[in-house]
């Protein structure tokens, strides 16, 4: 027999999983250590920032107690101390929601246009323009908004307050409709469009071409194909993009400071003048309220930090749970 065959018996089944030894090379180890080190450093930094805010801000909570969350105002000097973040938290949420309501549809439409409709030759240019819009400093948006956007939008605000006032949030108690939470939200909404658009565009462009062709070959129009193939594929990515935008909207400071006239009055009428956000509270009052004021603002910062962190963590959890940022298994 030319070829000897050796029969391999069934053998004994191993009872414990084998440990696979990887003899890594030095360069590999160094790189791994470096990547791991910087990764941990970021986490540690996040933790230290939170800890710092907590320790430095705690004395304010010692004074105000839980009332910090149910009080609106910033009076930290004098006999009667009256300070808290209630109205500011409320305003922060309102601004973020208005921003999302305005920004999300525009951003998703932009992303769809860029991936599905834009002429192929113009596409790279258009993508660059949209991405560039994310690089404009927010102070520029703020200035543009107060000189250009607001004068044009107050008319719309007024119209809405007159004709849509049966929707409670569009009612107004005063005729003033500038410097409102609505307009602040509008500016922030415009600012987050490029962020949401670029994340969703990336996800949309990953849609398997075979599925798109399959839909078109069944007689689907382009819009039906988008609704039934591209959008479902990009769902997870869209959700996380919106949350990223929301994180940005919650923390936006300077554009809100420029637009919003500060008022600690909590009102459901978002079109009317006045409001406050946590970021604005900190930026406007920093260094004004004595030692207690600084402590109160640091704790307000901690609150904002915690909210934003939670939103971003939720966003990344959603992205990592779904296939390539898309949400079949959501």
């Amino acid at each position: 027999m030319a070829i000897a065959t050796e029969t391999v018996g069934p053998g004994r089944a191993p009872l414990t999983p084998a440990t696979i030894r990887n003899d890594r090379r030095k360069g590999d180890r160094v790189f791994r250590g470096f990547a791991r080190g910087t990764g941990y450093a970021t986490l540690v930094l996040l933790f230290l920032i939170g800890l710092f805010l907590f320790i430095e801000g705690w004395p304010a909570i010692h004074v105000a107690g839980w009332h910090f969350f149910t009080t609106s105002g910033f009076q930290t000097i004098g006999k009667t101390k009256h300070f808290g973040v209630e109205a500011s938290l409320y305003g922060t949420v309102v601004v973020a929601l208005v921003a999302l309501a305005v920004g999300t549809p525009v951003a998703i439409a932009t992303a769809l246009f860029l991936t599905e409709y834009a002429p192929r030759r113009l596409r790279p240019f258009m993508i660059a323009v949209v991405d560039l819009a994310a690089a404009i400093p927010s102070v520029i948006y703020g200035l543009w908004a107060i000189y250009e956007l607001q004068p044009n939008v107050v008319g719309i605000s007024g119209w809405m307050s007159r004709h849509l006032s049966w929707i409670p949030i569009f009612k107004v108690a005063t005729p003033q409709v500038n410097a409102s939470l609505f307009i602040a939200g509008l500016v922030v909404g415009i600012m987050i469009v490029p962020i949401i658009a670029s994340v969703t565009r990336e996800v949309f462009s990953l849609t398997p071409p075979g599925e798109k062709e399959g839909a078109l070959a069944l007689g689907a129009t382009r819009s039906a194909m988008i609704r039934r193939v591209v959008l479902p594929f990009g769902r997870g990515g869209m959700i996380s993009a919106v949350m990223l935008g929301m994180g940005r909207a919650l923390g936006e400071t300077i554009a809100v400071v420029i637009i919003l006239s500060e008022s600690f009055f909590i009102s459901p009428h978002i079109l009317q003048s006045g409001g406050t956000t946590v970021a604005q509270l900190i930026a406007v009052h920093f260094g004004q309220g004595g030692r207690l004021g600084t402590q109160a603002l640091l704790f307000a910062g901690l609150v904002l930090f915690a909210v934003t962190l939670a939103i971003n963590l939720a966003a990344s959890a959603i992205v990592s749970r779904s296939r390539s940022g898309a949400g079949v298994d959501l």
Partner: protein
Amino acid sequence: MTLTATNDRNTVSDVQPTPGTGAAGLVAREVCAWFSGRLVLEGVTLAMPRSTVTALIGPSGCGKSTFLRILNRMHELVPGAQLAGSVELDGTDIYAGRLRATDTRRNIGMVFQKPNPFPAMSIYDNVLSGLKFSRISVSDRDALVEVSLTKAGLWNEVKNRMRELGGALSGGQQQRLCIARALAVEPRVLLMDEPCSALDPTSTARIEQTIADIADEVTVVIVTHNMQQAQRVSDVCAFFLAAENEPGRIIEAGPTDVIFGSPTDERTSDYVHGRFG
């Protein structure tokens, strides 16, 4: 004349010819195709008679897929693609502007080389997806699903798993699901681009059986690299060839037994007997 279609919207929609029902014949006349200005297919004329199975054979890169995609207006979706010539579906030129691209594609279905079910839709919804795209309503969805899956030879394997996702099937099952999905819109012609190339012999046999079963009600045009398959399933056979640095052309077309038994062109004879390509 070169037709350049940049999108699938149709400008002439006032005339809506009622696409008939049942198998329809296809006739391609003097079809040429370009990719980014490069001619890849030249002067292809071929009749694909009603209720027959036509096999397109030829070596890789000779333009079979391109030709197939011209038959249901998928070619124009490729950026930079152009074409010339005419394709008639029972006498109506699909490129003349009287039929919308979407209606054309609904009447001339397509099955791709790589199975492409919609992975996030259930098996049931996958079968009905074509109807949803075209907003066609049917009175008895369950019956349509069953009939389509039965025709595609998949019903028995999936009848108890209708709600599972289309992506949860094996490759061969996915391909048959794609066939069922294509049949559910009752196309008059079904184009298949190497539908079995990723499948095992059993699935291949099932699909060949499916082709034989549906040939009465739908004209089939199939691209295949498998000579035995071409012989087994087709009535008519067309041999494509592209000489080096030249566009693809039809060398010979005719009844399958003639193409395989006594071809007139030596190149055809060489190819079908596996002497090159």
